[in-house]
Protein backbone atom coordinates (compact mmCIF):
# COMPACT_ATOMS: atom_id res chain seq x y z
CA UNK A 1 0.00 0.00 0.00
CA UNK A 2 2.80 2.30 0.90
CA UNK A 3 4.52 1.41 -2.36
CA UNK A 4 1.42 2.34 -4.32
CA UNK A 5 1.28 5.78 -2.68
CA UNK A 6 4.93 6.28 -3.41
CA UNK A 7 4.44 5.38 -7.04
CA UNK A 8 1.51 7.75 -7.28
CA UNK A 9 3.56 10.55 -5.77
CA UNK A 10 6.39 9.85 -8.16
CA UNK A 11 3.98 9.93 -11.06
CA UNK A 12 2.61 13.25 -9.95
CA UNK A 13 6.07 14.71 -9.61
CA UNK A 14 7.00 13.51 -13.09
CA UNK A 15 3.87 14.99 -14.56
CA UNK A 16 4.61 18.26 -12.79
CA UNK A 17 8.15 18.29 -14.10
CA UNK A 18 7.02 17.57 -17.62
CA UNK A 19 4.42 20.28 -17.40
CA UNK A 20 7.01 22.64 -16.02
CA UNK A 21 9.44 21.85 -18.81
CA UNK A 22 6.75 22.26 -21.39
CA UNK A 23 5.81 25.58 -19.88
CA UNK A 24 9.40 26.85 -19.93
CA UNK A 25 9.89 25.53 -23.42
CA UNK A 26 6.80 27.30 -24.48
CA UNK A 27 8.13 30.63 -23.33
CA UNK A 28 10.98 30.32 -25.82
CA UNK A 29 8.86 29.17 -28.68
CA UNK A 30 8.37 32.62 -30.10
CA UNK A 31 9.23 33.43 -33.63
CA UNK A 32 12.89 33.51 -34.44
CA UNK A 33 15.09 33.40 -37.50
CA UNK A 34 18.78 32.77 -37.84
CA UNK A 35 21.01 33.86 -40.71
CA UNK A 36 24.67 33.07 -41.26
CA UNK A 37 27.21 35.69 -42.11
CA UNK A 38 29.12 33.66 -44.69
CA UNK A 39 32.05 35.90 -43.93
CA UNK A 40 34.55 33.21 -44.90
CA UNK A 41 38.01 32.64 -43.54
CA UNK A 42 40.80 35.12 -43.06
CA UNK A 43 44.31 33.82 -43.58
CA UNK A 44 47.50 35.43 -42.45
CA UNK A 45 50.32 35.79 -44.91
CA UNK A 46 53.63 34.08 -44.45
CA UNK A 47 56.80 35.93 -43.57
CA UNK A 48 59.10 34.39 -46.10
CA UNK A 49 62.53 35.96 -46.27
CA UNK A 50 65.11 34.19 -48.38
CA UNK A 51 68.89 34.31 -48.34
CA UNK A 52 71.17 33.56 -51.27
CA UNK A 53 74.92 33.67 -51.61
CA UNK A 54 75.05 33.42 -55.39
CA UNK A 55 72.82 33.39 -58.41
CA UNK A 56 73.06 29.66 -59.05
CA UNK A 57 72.13 28.02 -55.76
CA UNK A 58 68.55 27.93 -54.64
CA UNK A 59 67.89 30.56 -51.96
CA UNK A 60 67.21 29.25 -48.49
CA UNK A 61 64.55 30.43 -46.10
CA UNK A 62 65.77 32.63 -43.32
CA UNK A 63 63.76 30.48 -40.93
CA UNK A 64 64.26 26.75 -40.70
CA UNK A 65 61.42 24.27 -40.56
CA UNK A 66 62.00 24.12 -36.83
CA UNK A 67 61.44 27.85 -36.54
CA UNK A 68 65.03 28.71 -35.80
CA UNK A 69 67.26 31.13 -37.66
CA UNK A 70 68.99 29.67 -40.67
CA UNK A 71 72.71 30.00 -41.33
CA UNK A 72 74.14 30.68 -44.75
CA UNK A 73 77.79 30.08 -45.43
CA UNK A 74 79.04 32.76 -47.79
CA UNK A 75 81.68 32.32 -50.40
CA UNK A 76 84.38 34.94 -50.61
CA UNK A 77 85.98 36.16 -53.74
CA UNK A 78 88.63 35.88 -54.62
CA UNK A 79 88.71 32.36 -53.36
CA UNK A 80 91.70 31.22 -51.38
CA UNK A 81 93.95 32.98 -48.96
CA UNK A 82 94.02 36.70 -48.28
CA UNK A 83 97.34 38.40 -48.04
CA UNK A 84 98.02 41.15 -45.49
CA UNK A 85 96.75 44.43 -46.88
CA UNK A 86 94.24 42.72 -49.18
CA UNK A 87 90.51 42.19 -48.94
CA UNK A 88 88.00 39.48 -49.78
CA UNK A 89 84.38 40.05 -50.68
CA UNK A 90 81.20 38.18 -50.14
CA UNK A 91 77.60 39.09 -50.76
CA UNK A 92 74.22 37.99 -49.50
CA UNK A 93 70.98 38.51 -51.29
CA UNK A 94 67.89 38.96 -49.14
CA UNK A 95 64.52 38.31 -50.74
CA UNK A 96 61.10 39.44 -49.56
CA UNK A 97 59.05 36.52 -50.85
CA UNK A 98 55.92 36.98 -48.79
CA UNK A 99 52.52 36.06 -50.18
CA UNK A 100 50.90 39.04 -48.47
CA UNK A 101 48.11 40.64 -50.44
CA UNK A 102 48.75 44.16 -49.26
CA UNK A 103 51.96 46.13 -49.54
CA UNK A 104 54.55 44.45 -47.39
CA UNK A 105 57.95 46.03 -47.16
CA UNK A 106 60.73 44.66 -45.01
CA UNK A 107 63.70 46.34 -43.42
CA UNK A 108 66.95 44.43 -43.21
CA UNK A 109 69.47 45.30 -40.52
CA UNK A 110 72.98 44.00 -40.13
CA UNK A 111 74.20 43.33 -36.65
CA UNK A 112 77.75 43.74 -35.43
CA UNK A 113 80.03 41.07 -36.90
CA UNK A 114 81.48 38.51 -34.57
CA UNK A 115 84.96 37.24 -35.40
CA UNK A 116 85.99 33.97 -33.84
CA UNK A 117 89.59 32.85 -33.94
CA UNK A 118 89.95 29.33 -35.16
CA UNK A 119 93.13 29.02 -33.15
CA UNK A 120 93.11 30.82 -29.85
CA UNK A 121 96.92 30.90 -29.77
CA UNK A 122 96.90 32.93 -32.94
CA UNK A 123 94.11 35.50 -32.54
CA UNK A 124 93.77 36.60 -36.09
CA UNK A 125 90.64 38.61 -35.35
CA UNK A 126 92.63 41.61 -34.23
CA UNK A 127 93.93 42.04 -37.78
CA UNK A 128 90.61 41.67 -39.53
CA UNK A 129 88.15 44.43 -40.29
CA UNK A 130 84.74 44.20 -41.91
CA UNK A 131 82.67 46.69 -43.83
CA UNK A 132 79.36 46.23 -45.55
CA UNK A 133 77.47 48.24 -48.16
CA UNK A 134 74.29 47.86 -50.12
CA UNK A 135 75.01 46.46 -53.56
CA UNK A 136 72.96 46.53 -56.76
CA UNK A 137 73.43 42.80 -57.21
CA UNK A 138 75.54 39.90 -56.05
CA UNK A 139 77.52 40.07 -59.25
CA UNK A 140 78.61 43.60 -58.46
CA UNK A 141 79.87 42.82 -55.00
CA UNK A 142 83.51 43.84 -55.10
CA UNK A 143 86.11 46.44 -54.36
CA UNK A 144 84.42 49.10 -56.48
CA UNK A 145 81.71 49.52 -53.87
CA UNK A 146 84.11 50.38 -51.07
CA UNK A 147 86.31 53.32 -50.25
CA UNK A 148 88.29 54.31 -47.18
CA UNK A 149 85.37 56.48 -46.09
CA UNK A 150 82.85 53.65 -46.28
CA UNK A 151 81.31 53.21 -42.81
CA UNK A 152 81.52 49.83 -41.19
CA UNK A 153 77.74 49.45 -40.99
CA UNK A 154 75.42 50.26 -43.84
CA UNK A 155 72.02 51.86 -43.54
CA UNK A 156 69.11 49.45 -43.18
CA UNK A 157 68.00 47.94 -46.43
CA UNK A 158 64.36 48.32 -47.41
CA UNK A 159 62.95 45.68 -49.72
CA UNK A 160 59.52 45.75 -51.31
CA UNK A 161 57.27 42.72 -51.67
CA UNK A 162 58.67 40.28 -54.20
CA UNK A 163 61.99 42.11 -54.51
CA UNK A 164 65.55 41.42 -53.44
CA UNK A 165 68.29 43.43 -51.81
CA UNK A 166 71.99 42.73 -51.54
CA UNK A 167 74.60 43.43 -48.91
CA UNK A 168 78.24 43.20 -49.90
CA UNK A 169 80.87 42.53 -47.24
CA UNK A 170 84.49 43.48 -47.40
CA UNK A 171 86.83 41.57 -45.12
CA UNK A 172 90.28 43.13 -44.93
CA UNK A 173 93.43 41.74 -43.45
CA UNK A 174 95.64 44.39 -41.94
CA UNK A 175 98.96 44.97 -43.64
CA UNK A 176 100.54 45.00 -40.22
CA UNK A 177 99.75 41.38 -39.56
CA UNK A 178 102.91 39.62 -38.43
CA UNK A 179 104.15 36.83 -40.60
CA UNK A 180 103.79 34.50 -37.66
CA UNK A 181 100.03 34.58 -38.24
CA UNK A 182 100.36 33.20 -41.71
CA UNK A 183 98.05 30.27 -42.34
CA UNK A 184 95.70 31.13 -39.50
CA UNK A 185 91.97 31.45 -40.04
CA UNK A 186 89.02 33.07 -38.34
CA UNK A 187 85.30 32.70 -38.68
CA UNK A 188 83.10 35.75 -39.18
CA UNK A 189 79.44 35.78 -38.30
CA UNK A 190 77.11 38.62 -39.25
CA UNK A 191 73.58 38.50 -37.84
CA UNK A 192 70.82 39.72 -40.10
CA UNK A 193 67.55 40.94 -38.66
CA UNK A 194 64.49 41.48 -40.82
CA UNK A 195 61.48 43.43 -39.67
CA UNK A 196 58.19 44.21 -41.26
CA UNK A 197 58.42 47.84 -42.31
Amino acid sequence: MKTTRTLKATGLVLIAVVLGLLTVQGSYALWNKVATSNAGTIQAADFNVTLAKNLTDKPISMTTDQGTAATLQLTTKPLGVVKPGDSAYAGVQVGNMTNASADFKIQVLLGAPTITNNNSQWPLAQYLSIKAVEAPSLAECGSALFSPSTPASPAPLEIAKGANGVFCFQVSLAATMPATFNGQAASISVPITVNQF
Partner: protein
Amino acid sequence: MNKIAKGAIATGVGIVLLAGGGGTLAVWNQTDIGTQGKISAGDLNLVAGTGVWKNAKNEDITIGSYRVVPGEVLTYTQPLTVTLEGDLMVAHLTLTGASPVNGFVPADVTTSTTLTDAAGVTVEGNTPLDKDHDGDFTATTTFAFRLGTEGRSSVNATYDFKDIGYMLEQQTPNADIVAPPVGP
Protein backbone atom coordinates in the same frame (compact mmCIF):
# COMPACT_ATOMS: atom_id res chain seq x y z
CA MET B 1 -65.28 1.24 -29.30
CA ASN B 2 -63.21 -1.66 -30.13
CA LYS B 3 -59.51 -1.83 -29.48
CA ILE B 4 -58.60 -0.86 -33.00
CA ALA B 5 -60.59 2.36 -32.80
CA LYS B 6 -59.05 3.28 -29.45
CA GLY B 7 -55.57 2.77 -30.85
CA ALA B 8 -56.28 4.96 -33.84
CA ILE B 9 -57.54 7.76 -31.64
CA ALA B 10 -54.48 7.58 -29.38
CA THR B 11 -52.19 7.76 -32.41
CA GLY B 12 -54.04 10.78 -33.71
CA VAL B 13 -53.77 12.55 -30.36
CA GLY B 14 -50.01 11.85 -30.34
CA ILE B 15 -49.58 13.36 -33.79
CA VAL B 16 -51.54 16.42 -32.73
CA LEU B 17 -49.27 16.76 -29.66
CA LEU B 18 -46.22 16.53 -31.91
CA ALA B 19 -47.66 19.20 -34.14
CA GLY B 20 -48.27 21.39 -31.09
CA GLY B 21 -44.68 20.92 -29.97
CA GLY B 22 -43.53 22.04 -33.39
CA GLY B 23 -45.44 25.18 -32.95
CA THR B 24 -43.23 26.18 -30.08
CA LEU B 25 -40.37 26.77 -32.61
CA ALA B 26 -42.27 29.43 -34.37
CA VAL B 27 -41.79 32.16 -31.75
CA TRP B 28 -39.89 35.43 -32.59
CA ASN B 29 -36.22 35.07 -33.26
CA GLN B 30 -33.46 37.15 -34.74
CA THR B 31 -29.97 36.44 -36.05
CA ASP B 32 -27.04 38.73 -36.73
CA ILE B 33 -23.39 38.36 -37.83
CA GLY B 34 -20.38 38.86 -35.61
CA THR B 35 -18.12 41.86 -36.27
CA GLN B 36 -14.90 40.30 -35.12
CA GLY B 37 -13.42 40.78 -38.56
CA LYS B 38 -10.33 38.97 -39.79
CA ILE B 39 -7.19 38.38 -37.77
CA SER B 40 -3.93 38.57 -39.66
CA ALA B 41 -0.68 37.26 -38.30
CA GLY B 42 2.37 39.44 -38.45
CA ASP B 43 5.75 38.39 -39.76
CA LEU B 44 9.28 38.02 -38.52
CA ASN B 45 12.11 37.32 -40.90
CA LEU B 46 15.80 37.90 -41.26
CA VAL B 47 17.68 37.67 -44.52
CA ALA B 48 21.43 38.23 -44.71
CA GLY B 49 22.56 39.74 -47.96
CA THR B 50 25.91 39.39 -49.64
CA GLY B 51 28.67 40.89 -47.56
CA VAL B 52 31.79 42.61 -48.79
CA TRP B 53 35.27 42.53 -47.29
CA LYS B 54 37.44 45.61 -47.66
CA ASN B 55 41.03 46.21 -46.69
CA ALA B 56 42.51 49.26 -45.04
CA LYS B 57 42.69 51.00 -48.41
CA ASN B 58 38.93 50.59 -48.75
CA GLU B 59 39.45 48.21 -51.65
CA ASP B 60 37.12 45.26 -52.16
CA ILE B 61 38.99 42.03 -51.51
CA THR B 62 38.30 38.34 -52.01
CA ILE B 63 38.76 36.99 -48.56
CA GLY B 64 39.43 33.43 -49.73
CA SER B 65 42.63 34.43 -51.47
CA TYR B 66 43.63 37.42 -49.38
CA ARG B 67 46.65 37.13 -47.09
CA VAL B 68 46.64 39.51 -44.20
CA VAL B 69 49.72 40.88 -42.44
CA PRO B 70 50.23 42.62 -39.10
CA GLY B 71 48.95 46.16 -39.09
CA GLU B 72 46.02 45.52 -41.39
CA VAL B 73 42.38 46.06 -40.53
CA LEU B 74 39.80 44.24 -42.62
CA THR B 75 36.15 45.18 -42.57
CA TYR B 76 33.17 43.04 -43.55
CA THR B 77 29.96 44.88 -44.26
CA GLN B 78 26.79 42.88 -44.70
CA PRO B 79 23.24 44.11 -45.29
CA LEU B 80 20.48 42.51 -43.24
CA THR B 81 16.84 42.72 -44.17
CA VAL B 82 14.67 42.55 -41.09
CA THR B 83 10.94 41.97 -41.33
CA LEU B 84 9.01 42.92 -38.21
CA GLU B 85 5.26 43.02 -38.69
CA GLY B 86 2.87 42.92 -35.82
CA ASP B 87 1.37 45.66 -33.73
CA LEU B 88 2.90 44.33 -30.56
CA MET B 89 5.94 42.81 -32.18
CA VAL B 90 9.11 43.08 -30.16
CA ALA B 91 12.31 41.34 -31.15
CA HIS B 92 16.01 41.31 -30.43
CA LEU B 93 18.69 41.13 -33.08
CA THR B 94 21.82 39.45 -31.78
CA LEU B 95 25.04 37.82 -32.91
CA THR B 96 25.34 34.08 -32.77
CA GLY B 97 28.30 31.75 -32.74
CA ALA B 98 30.71 34.23 -31.24
CA SER B 99 33.40 31.58 -30.96
CA PRO B 100 35.01 31.34 -34.36
CA VAL B 101 37.67 28.82 -35.20
CA ASN B 102 40.65 30.98 -34.49
CA GLY B 103 44.10 29.78 -35.37
CA PHE B 104 45.71 33.12 -34.62
CA VAL B 105 47.49 33.81 -31.38
CA PRO B 106 44.66 35.48 -29.46
CA ALA B 107 46.76 38.49 -28.51
CA ASP B 108 47.54 39.20 -32.15
CA VAL B 109 44.04 40.00 -33.32
CA THR B 110 40.94 41.80 -32.27
CA THR B 111 37.55 41.33 -33.85
CA SER B 112 34.25 43.02 -33.28
CA THR B 113 30.86 43.10 -34.90
CA THR B 114 28.33 45.89 -34.64
CA LEU B 115 24.76 45.98 -35.83
CA THR B 116 23.21 49.26 -36.89
CA ASP B 117 19.76 50.16 -38.07
CA ALA B 118 18.89 52.13 -41.17
CA ALA B 119 19.56 55.37 -39.32
CA GLY B 120 23.00 54.21 -38.32
CA VAL B 121 22.08 53.75 -34.69
CA THR B 122 23.86 50.88 -32.98
CA VAL B 123 21.63 48.00 -32.05
CA GLU B 124 22.62 46.16 -28.91
CA GLY B 125 21.54 42.65 -28.13
CA ASN B 126 18.88 43.89 -25.75
CA THR B 127 17.61 46.72 -27.90
CA PRO B 128 13.87 46.20 -28.39
CA LEU B 129 13.00 46.30 -32.04
CA ASP B 130 9.39 46.80 -33.04
CA LYS B 131 7.46 47.16 -36.27
CA ASP B 132 8.95 50.60 -36.82
CA HIS B 133 12.34 48.93 -37.20
CA ASP B 134 11.13 46.83 -40.10
CA GLY B 135 13.67 47.36 -42.86
CA ASP B 136 17.38 47.40 -43.48
CA PHE B 137 20.15 46.81 -40.97
CA THR B 138 23.89 46.58 -41.41
CA ALA B 139 26.32 44.21 -39.76
CA THR B 140 29.90 45.43 -39.67
CA THR B 141 32.69 43.10 -38.62
CA THR B 142 36.24 44.33 -38.21
CA PHE B 143 39.33 42.17 -38.00
CA ALA B 144 42.48 43.90 -36.82
CA PHE B 145 45.85 42.18 -37.03
CA ARG B 146 47.83 43.94 -34.32
CA LEU B 147 50.74 45.98 -35.61
CA GLY B 148 52.92 45.02 -32.66
CA THR B 149 52.82 41.32 -33.49
CA GLU B 150 56.25 39.98 -32.68
CA GLY B 151 58.53 37.46 -34.30
CA ARG B 152 56.65 35.26 -36.72
CA SER B 153 53.59 35.00 -34.54
CA SER B 154 50.41 33.89 -36.35
CA VAL B 155 52.18 33.38 -39.67
CA ASN B 156 49.84 31.48 -42.03
CA ALA B 157 47.16 31.35 -39.33
CA THR B 158 43.48 31.24 -40.25
CA TYR B 159 40.43 32.79 -38.69
CA ASP B 160 37.20 31.14 -39.75
CA PHE B 161 33.97 33.07 -39.40
CA LYS B 162 31.81 30.15 -40.49
CA ASP B 163 29.89 29.95 -37.21
CA ILE B 164 29.19 33.64 -36.99
CA GLY B 165 25.64 34.64 -37.72
CA TYR B 166 22.72 36.67 -36.57
CA MET B 167 19.47 35.83 -34.85
CA LEU B 168 16.25 37.77 -34.84
CA GLU B 169 14.17 36.56 -31.95
CA GLN B 170 10.72 37.65 -30.93
CA GLN B 171 10.32 38.73 -27.33
CA THR B 172 7.25 38.41 -25.21
CA PRO B 173 5.21 41.59 -25.62
CA ASN B 174 5.54 43.63 -22.45
CA ALA B 175 3.74 46.47 -20.80
CA ASP B 176 5.99 49.05 -22.38
CA ILE B 177 4.41 48.65 -25.74
CA VAL B 178 0.87 47.80 -24.71
CA ALA B 179 -1.46 50.73 -25.22
CA PRO B 180 -2.51 52.25 -21.89
CA PRO B 181 -6.13 51.90 -20.86
CA VAL B 182 -8.49 54.61 -21.99
CA GLY B 183 -9.11 57.14 -19.24
CA PRO B 184 -12.49 58.43 -17.96
